């Protein structure tokens, strides 16, 4: 069924908005973990634990943001997750751009 033709579900949008408001700070905490990894990668000090934490938080954001309507956020988070997977060489420029896009997506939702 075309999304425009779907009957509305009373209360669903409000419920999702309330859940987002409740967990928004956690989303930004995960973003901060990614930024911390980015900073370390920039000065060549990225260690395995910091990388793993950023990978984990990127994975969590990728799996959640689209559910809140932030599909670009999911796309950026997924790119970051893949970039930090394992011990592959990091494309720092791409990582930085995706981190910027991810933060912008988070900030776009009140």
């Amino acid at each position: 069924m075309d999304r425009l033709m779907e009957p509305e579900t009373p209360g669903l949008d409000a419920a999702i908005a309330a859940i987002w408001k409740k967990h928004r700070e956690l989303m930004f905490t995960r973003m901060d973990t990614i930024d911390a990894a980015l900073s370390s990668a920039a000065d060549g000090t990225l260690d395995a634990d910091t990388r793993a934490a950023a990978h984990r938080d990127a994975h969590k954001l990728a799996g959640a943001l689209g559910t809140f309507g932030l599909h670009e956020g999911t796309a950026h988070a997924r790119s970051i997750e893949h970039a930090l997977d394992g011990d592959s060489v990091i494309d720092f420029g791409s990582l930085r751009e995706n981190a910027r896009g991810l933060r912008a997506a988070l900030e776009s939702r009140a």
Partner: protein
Amino acid sequence: MTRRILLIEDEDDIREVAQACLELTRGWEVHAANSGNAGLAMAQDVMPDAVLLDVMMPGLDGPGTLTALRANPATSHIPVIFLTAKVHSSERARFMDLGASGVLAKPFDPMTLGDDVARLLQWTD
């Protein structure tokens, strides 16, 4: 007939949205657990019509939880759908081999999650 769903998901935000959308879009009775072990106990208490199960959880993960559900005669018959942010074809095949009735990707669409669950389980009500 009101379907009874057990949702096992450790991430609070995803669990809360999934519960809200299944309750509001389908009118299902949703019971939620935040870990594999809590889910196993709840499954035996609630005897749901289906389980919606996260894959990556600390401690007892999704595949481990499914294996435990299948090993318990009281819960072995309950259909299980995995919910995962990693849906590579090899992983999907592994989950189906474990006995899952289907795999749904995260992020899910809150408007259609219930429809997707019903489709996989061939529920027409």
